[in-house]
């Protein structure tokens, strides 16, 4: 299948490894991957902060970029939910039936990784290898807007060598929330501290999720606490194989430089 990647601005700049892992994984599964040029930001930060007018051109642009593709894979569950959940609101605000039709169309073709693998490609075993203890944090937008259910853990459970540790109070928000982390920094920190404490209880080497934004927040707290636990997008775990394994590396401050495995 020909799959168009929607990398999202934040992943593009801060976490290019996630996109590369998706490319590697999908090619290994025999699919063609394309990266439509000119893609930018979905506008979630603007939207969630109240700047809805600023998002309307971004929604139009998103539709332009991904118009000709049957299947679009979003590197971030949160950005996928922005398109599916809130672009229709923007179309209403713009008073444009045309934009409404376009965003509905692109929303129906847009998938988060586990949705694409399990629902579209019918894959639950990706032939991956990752011999580490891992705990999975179901990020709020993936869980409650995209409703991916247990698809990510279905995939992770089938990774060879993995030891999946259940995260206590897994479904509670980590406290990132975009500009919430800045506007309500104290509350965000209180929520993040509890998430980190629960993660530490699992004894996992790696905390994984479908959103690098939440992982950046949790990882930033792990780093500040000098925790050896490493935040990692689950695409990277699925991309790891016995032939080309991904190590767990050290804490966030080391591993967020390009790693040996994924060095350009």
């Amino acid at each position: 299948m020909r799959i168009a990647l929607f990398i999202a601005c934040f992943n593009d700049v801060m976490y290019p490894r996630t996109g590369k892992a998706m490319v590697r994984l999908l090619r290994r599964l025999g699919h063609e991957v394309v990266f439509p040029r000119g893609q930018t930001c979905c506008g979630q930060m603007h939207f969630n902060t109240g700047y809805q007018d600023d998002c309307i051109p971004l929604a139009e642009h998103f539709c332009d970029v991904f118009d000709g593709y049957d299947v679009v894979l979003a590197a971030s569950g949160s950005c996928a939910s922005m398109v599916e959940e809130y672009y229709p609101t923007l179309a209403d605000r713009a008073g444009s039936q045309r934009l409404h039709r376009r965003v509905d169309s692109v929303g129906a073709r847009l998938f988060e990784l586990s949705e694409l693998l399990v629902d579209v490609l019918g894959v639950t075993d990706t032939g991956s290898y990752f011999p580490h203890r891992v705990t999975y944090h179901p990020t709020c937008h993936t869980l409650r807007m995209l409703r991916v259910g247990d698809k990510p853990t279905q995939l992770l459970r089938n990774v060879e060598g993995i030891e999946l540790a259940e995260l206590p109070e897994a479904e509670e928000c980590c406290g990132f929330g975009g500009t919430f982390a800045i506007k309500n920094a104290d509350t965000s920190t209180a929520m993040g501290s509890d998430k980190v404490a629960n993660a530490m209880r699992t004894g996992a080497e790696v905390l994984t999720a479908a959103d690098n934004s939440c992982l950046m927040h949790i990882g930033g707290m792990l780093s500040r606490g000098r925790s050896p636990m490493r935040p990692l997008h689950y695409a990277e775990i699925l991309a790891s194989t016995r032939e080309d394994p991904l190590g767990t590396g050290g804490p966030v401050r080391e591993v967020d430089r390009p790693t040996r495995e994924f060095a350009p």
Partner: protein
Amino acid sequence: MPPFPEAAAHELRNSQQRHNLHKATRTIRAKRDALVAERDDWEQLRLSAEAIKNDTLAHLDEYLLQFEEAATAAGAIVHWAPDAESANRIVARLAVDAGADEVVKAKSMTTEEIGLDRALAAAGVDAYETDLAALIVQLAGDVPSHIVVPAIHRNRAEIRQIFDKNMGAFGRPAPDGMTDDPASLAAAARAHLREKFLRAGVAVTGANFAVAETGTLMLVESEGNGRMCVTMPKTLISVVGIEKIIPTWRDTEVFLQLLARSATGERMNPYTSMWTGVHHAEGVSGEPVADGPEQVHIVLLDEGRTDVLADPAGRSALRCIRCAACLNVCPVYSRTGGHAYGSVYPGPIGAVLTPQLRGLHSEQDRNLPYASSLCGACFDACPVRIPIPHLLTHLRSKVVDAEPAFPPSPERVAMKAASAIFERPAAMGLGERLAGLAHKVIRGGPDANVPSVPGLAGWFGSRDVAVPPPESFSNWWSRTDGGTRDGGDVP
């Protein structure tokens, strides 16, 4: 009252309260989850409740008139109060006319909203709360912290102290030898309150539902204090928000199944009281006598509700049945407690209801829609399916739209700059430009994680930030043709 971010920071430092809140919200949450899970028609019930409430709101004028007609025919007196001031004036006048210098209160969130106690005090009437938790709050000189469990932020050791110290000033003092055992505390409250019930000539209550078809008010509770209030005093005054209407008696079937499960994690609440006007029984010599209150007054309160109704994107907040399920699942509320919201209705529903009822005029009300990480747990828990995250983003846009464009706030400048870049991406290099910028901002500390960046102190207070790698994904893709040449590492 300071805006939420500062008030929350203050509340977060209260470690005893945080402990109490954590324990209490998780206990209620677990009970609720277990009882919701045993209903295989839970989603259908939610959809029914949403549909009934939507129908009610769409024809609210008709249902209100129908309610007035039915209640009046049954002997109640219906008063219309466009705002808090008129509602307070009506209630105070009724209490004074009844010759009362004190009233007992039950289920009185709406009266909290309008500040009734102050208005009564000004008219020389003392108001006593009879709900155990509301009593604790009143004795402590505190304000409620939760919609259903107003004293959720207190533990029993604190409650014992409050009773011991303050009960005597309000009436019957706490008995000697009272312990912090729940039964001992409840016995003390019971004795204290019994005195009030027996003496009171006037009761003021709220209502959970008002049935248009029959003119009936319904009050749902756990302790029986509400039932005492609606049966013992000669005059019964109920202050009811106009959104409490439901069309028919049959509709109560849906809401009574949803409410107790959502609110307290019980299959059914212990006491459900319903009254329709004045009830007459036969006296000893065959004459009609009132069985229960001789005078029943109903004050229908608007106080901003029709303004909420006028906003198609915001009106779903009026579906709220005040179960507080959204508070118990909210990660923000369960850490800050209710006081930080500076609103009678705290938590997620308060963050969308209060700024709509009061308007976005104050700094405090403009901050409420931002008091959420938009995690969405509130919507999943809401028995009437209020899309709280959507309402929050809607209200945030109203806050931003109402801001003067000039001079622009630093946030507006940043947002405009970001969208200017995003709207016109170069064929290549957007990532690099941003990465270069991020490098300039973030690099510099001795170990490449700088301690602070101006304007982002909130982030750096508790979190490090990863340094962006030197090459973005888009540049890598272009340089290596999707990882197929020039050192691309993807086969």
